C-alpha cells in the first residue's frame, strides 16, 4: 500500500519534470542560458554601476544610437540607428534626432520625444545622483520638437558630441516613471521591474539566482533570434565553467585563463570566441613621496630609473605565464578595443642590458656583491601594492619580481585587501601600484587617468607633462578624424618615452559559446549589445529551445 503510493508519487515527479509544455517550432525559438559573473544591482540604467547591470539592461533598454563595430567615437561615423531612425546637425551645437515611429515600450505605448527629454532630466538630476551625470555636463538641454523629434543643444562644439549624446543614456519611459519622486527613483520597486523598448523584456528576476528575459517578437528593428535569454548569476568562474561544460549554460563571456580555454576546447559542444578586451594592466610609479605628497619620490622622480625599470620587464613572458598567451603587450595606456590601438607606436622594448646600463649610469651598482644594486649604502628597492583579490595580478607580480631581480632590483610585493588598497592608492601612499583600467570606447578617458588634469582624481601617480597634456587635449578637441589619430599616437608615444608606468598587457577576452548558436558577434565594450541578432536554426535545437516562450 505504502509502496504503491510511493511509486505513484515518484512517477508524478518524473512525469512532471519531463513534461514538455508548448512545443516551440521555427527559427525564432531558442532558449539560451548565460552564466553571468555578477548580479545586476539594479535594472534602472541611470543607477547602474556594474558591467553585469549594463549587460542585462542593454537587452531591455535602447539608446538613441549605438557605437559601430569600428568603435569610432568621433563624429557620428559608424553609429547605428536605434531609437533614433536618423539625425541631423543644424549647427555645430544643435543635434536633432528623428525617432523611429515604430518604436514601442514593452507596455505598448509609443516611444516619444518627451521620453528622451525626461531621460536626460533624470540622468542629470543630482537627487538621482547618477554616476553618468558628469559625462553629460556638456549637453545644455534636451527638448522635444514634436512627438518624433528631439533636439540636443551643446555648450560648445567638440568631436565626441554625438558619442556623449548617445552612448551613456538608455532611454527611459516617462509615462511609467514620471509619477515617482526623483529622490526615491533609484530605490523604487520599478528598478527591478523595468519597462524598456529593447529587444527583450523582463519576465522574472529571481534575486541572486536568475534573470529571465523573453523576446519582444514585434521588436521594431527586427525579430530577435532567440526567444528566451536567461542570465544565471554565477560569481565563481569554476562554477560557470562547470555549467557550460555540463551543458546547463550556453554562454560564458569570460574564460579568464588559458587553462580554462583549453578545458572548453576539449568539449565538443562548445566553441570559443576571442574578442579584444577593454582593459589594460600596468605598474604605476608614484611621482610623489608616499610620506610627503609635496616632495618628489626619491626613486621615481627620475625618468631614467622609470625607463630602465620599464625596459627590464618582459611583457611576453608575463602574457605567456599569466594569461597562457591570451593577450597582447600594450602599446601605452590603451586597451586593444580602442580605435587608436596601433602596435607601431614607439614604446620601450624589453632590453635588460640597456636597463642595467642606465641604472649603472645613475650610480646604481652592486658594490657588496649581494646581487642587488645599491648606491651610497642604499639598495635599489621599492614596494608594489596589489589587490589580494586578483589571482592574475598576484601571479604576474611574482614573475615581474623575478624579472627585476635579474637586473638587480628588489621589488617587494604587498597584497592588500581591496578597500585598503583603494585608500592607499587614492591618497598617494604607495611606491608602485599594479593597476588595471577598463576603458570606454572613447580614448578621451586616457586624459583623466594620465594628464595633469586628473591629479587628485584618477591620476594616482601624479604624472604631469605639459607636452602630453597639450597633445592629448588637442587630440580630444580635433575635429578631423585623421589628425586626431595622429595626435593620439604622438601623445601615446610621448607618455611611453616618459614611462610614468610600465605598460604590461591587454588581455584578450575569450567567450565560450554553445555550437548550436549561430550569428554570434560580440562588441568588445558591451558583449550583449548584439546578442539579439544571435539565433539557433531549427535543425540544431536542443530540448530547452523547444520549450519556447513561457
Amino acid at each position, binding site marked *: 500500500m505504502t509502496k504503491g503510493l510511493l511509486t505513484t508519487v515518484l512517477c508524478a515527479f518524473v512525469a512532471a519534470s519531463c513534461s514538455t509544455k508548448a512545443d516551440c517550432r521555427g527559427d525564432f525559438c531558442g532558449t539560451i542560458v548565460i552564466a553571468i559573473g555578477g548580479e545586476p544591482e539594479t535594472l534602472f540604467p541611470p543607477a547602474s554601476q556594474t558591467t553585469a547591470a549594463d549587460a542585462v539592461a542593454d537587452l531591455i533598454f535602447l539608446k538613441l544610437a549605438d557605437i559601430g563595430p569600428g568603435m569610432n567615437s568621433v563624429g557620428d561615423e559608424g553609429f547605428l540607428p536605434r531609437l533614433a531612425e536618423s539625425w541631423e546637425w543644424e549647427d555645430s551645437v544643435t543635434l536633432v534626432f528623428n525617432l523611429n515611429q515604430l518604436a514601442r515600450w514593452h507596455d505598448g505605448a509609443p516611444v516619444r520625444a518627451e521620453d528622451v527629454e525626461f531621460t536626460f532630466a533624470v540622468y542629470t538630476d543630482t*537627487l538621482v*545622483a547618477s554616476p553618468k551625470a558628469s559625462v553629460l555636463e556638456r549637453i545644455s538641454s534636451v527638448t522635444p520638437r514634436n512627438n518624433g523629434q528631439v533636439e540636443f543643444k551643446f555648450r560648445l562644439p567638440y568631436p565626441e558630441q554625438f558619442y556623449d549624446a548617445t552612448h551613456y543614456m538608455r532611454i527611459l519611459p516617462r509615462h511609467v516613471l514620471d509619477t515617482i519622486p526623483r529622490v526615491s527613483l533609484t530605490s523604487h520597486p520599478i528598478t527591478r521591474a523595468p519597462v524598456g523598448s529593447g529587444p527583450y523584456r523582463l519576465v522574472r528576476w*529571481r534575486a541572486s539566482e536568475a534573470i529571465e528575459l523573453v523576446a519582444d517578437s514585434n521588436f521594431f528593428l527586427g525579430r530577435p533570434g532567440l526567444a528566451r535569454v536567461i542570465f544565471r548569476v554565477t560569481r565563481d568562474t569554476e562554477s560557470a565553467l*562547470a555549467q557550460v561544460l555540463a551543458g546547463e549554460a550556453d554562454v560564458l563571456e569570460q574564460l579568464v585563463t588559458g587553462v580554462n580555454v583549453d578545458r572548453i576546447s576539449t568539449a565538443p559542444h562548445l566553441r570559443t570566441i576571442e574578442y579584444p578586451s577593454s582593459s589594460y594592466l600596468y605598474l604605476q610609479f608614484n611621482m610623489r613621496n608616499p610620506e610627503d605628497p609635496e616632495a618628489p619620490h626619491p626613486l621615481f622622480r627620475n625618468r631614467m630609473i622609470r625607463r630602465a625599470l620599464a625596459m627590464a620587464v618582459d611583457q611576453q613572458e608575463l602574457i605567456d605565464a599569466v594569461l597562457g598567451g591570451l593577450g597582447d603587450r600594450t602599446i601605452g595606456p590603451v586597451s586593444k578595443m580602442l580605435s587608436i590601438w596601433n602596435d607601431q607606436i614607439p614604446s620601450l622594448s624589453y632590453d635588460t642590458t640597456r636597463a642595467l646600463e642606465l641604472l649603472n649610469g645613475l650610480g646604481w651598482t652592486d658594490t657588496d656583491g649581494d646581487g642587488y644594486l645599491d648606491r651610497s649604502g642604499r639598495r635599489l628597492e621599492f614596494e608594489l601594492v596589489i589587490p589580494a583579490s586578483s589571482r592574475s595580478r598576484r601571479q604576474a607580480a611574482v614573475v615581474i619580481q623575478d624579472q627585476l631581480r635579474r637586473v638587480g632590483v628588489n621589488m617587494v610585493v604587498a597584497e592588500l585587501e581591496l578597500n585598503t588598497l583603494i585608500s592607499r592608492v587614492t591618497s598617494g601612499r604607495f611606491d608602485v601600484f599594479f593597476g588595471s583600467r577598463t576603458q570606454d570606447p572613447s580614448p578621451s578617458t586616457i586624459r583623466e587617468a594620465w594628464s595633469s588634469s586628473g591629479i587628485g582624481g584618477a591620476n594616482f601617480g601624479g604624472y604631469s607633462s605639459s607636452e602630453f597634456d597639450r597633445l592629448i587635449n588637442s587630440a580630444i578637441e580635433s575635429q578631423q578624424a585623421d589628425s586626431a589619430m595622429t595626435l593620439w599616437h604622438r601623445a601615446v608615444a610621448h607618455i611611453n618615452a616618459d614611462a610614468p608606468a610600465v605598460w604590461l598587457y591587454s588581455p584578450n577576452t575569450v567567450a565560450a559559446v554553445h555550437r548550436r548558436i549561430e550569428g554570434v558577434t560580440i562588441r568588445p565594450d558591451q558583449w550583449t549589445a548584439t546578442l539579439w541578432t544571435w539565433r539557433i536554426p531549427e535543425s540544431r535545437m536542443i530540448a530547452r529551445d523547444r520549450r519556447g516562450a513561457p
Partner: protein
Amino acid sequence: MTRAIVRRLYQSVLVMFVVATATFFLIHLAPGDPFTPSIESANFSQEIVAQQRRNFGLDQPAHIQYVRYLQQIATGNFGISFSQHRPVLDVFYDVIPNTIVLAIAAILIDFVTGMTVGVFQSTRKGSRVDSLLSAISLVLYSTPVFWFGLMLVLLFGVTLRWLPTAGAIDPVVYHSLSLPGQLWDRIRHLILPAATLGLIGAGGTARFQRSALLEVLAEDFVRTARAKGLRERTVVTVHALRNSLLSIITLFGLSLPALLSGAVLVETVFSWPGMGRLITDAVSSRDYPVITGAAIVSALLVVAGNLTADILYRFADPRTRTAQ
C-alpha cells in the same frame, strides 16, 4: 522550561545589540567607503559621490549614524542596501530561505550519516571496518569544502551529468513545472551542495559519535542493561545511544556557526542563491546596511540553533528539567 526559553530570548536581544554595535563600528573603522568610485574605470564626479553619501545619511558623524541605525533596527527596519538600492529586508527575504534550506539539509545529512557511521563503528570497535571508516571520516573531516564541492560537481555534474551543477532551481523549466515537479527540481539541485557540506560535517560527527558512544558503553548502567538480559540492539540504541545524544546535541549547537561559514564557500561553488554569497559581496562593496543586517541575522540563526539545542537537550536529559 518556558522560563529558560524566555531567558534565552532576552539573551538573544542582547546578542543582537552587541553584534549590531560591534559590526557597525568595525565596518566604519575598516578602510574603504561604499561610495568610493572605482579606481579601475571611468571616474565620476565628487559631487555625485557627495550626493550619494547624503542620500544614505553617510555625511553625518558616526555616532549619529549609530543612533539612527539602532532606532531603525529597533523597529525591525534594516535600512536600504547601498548596492542593491532596495530594503535590506527584501534582500534577505530572497536569500535567507535558501540558506536555511541548505543548512537544514546539510545538518540532516551530517548528523544522520555521521551518527549512523559512528554507532556502527563503536559496535565494532577495533575491527578492520572500524579503522577503515575512521580513516575515511578523518580524511573527510579535513577536506577543504571548496575542493570537495568542486570534485562532486565535476564527477556528478560534468562527467556523469546525473545532477545539476549550480543554482537552487533550473530557471529554464522551473516555472512551467507542476508543484511536485518544482519540488523534485529543488531536491535535485539541493543534493550536491547539501552533500558537500553535510558529508564534511559527517566526518567530524562520526568521530565524535564513535567516541561518545564508546564512553557511554563503558558506563555502569550499560552493564546493568546487559545484566538485565536486554537485546544488544536495545542496549546500544535505548540505553547507550540516548545518553550519547547529550553530547551530540552539544556538538550540534557548537557546529552551527561553522556550518554557516562553510555555507559561504558551498554557496560560491554551487552558485547557490543564499546568504553566504550576499555577505561576501556586501563586504567587498562595503554595503553597510547589508553587512550589519547579515551579522545580526547570522547571530540570530546561531542563537536559534542554540535554543533548539537547548530544547532538544531538555528533552533528552531529564536532569536538566526543573526538579519536581
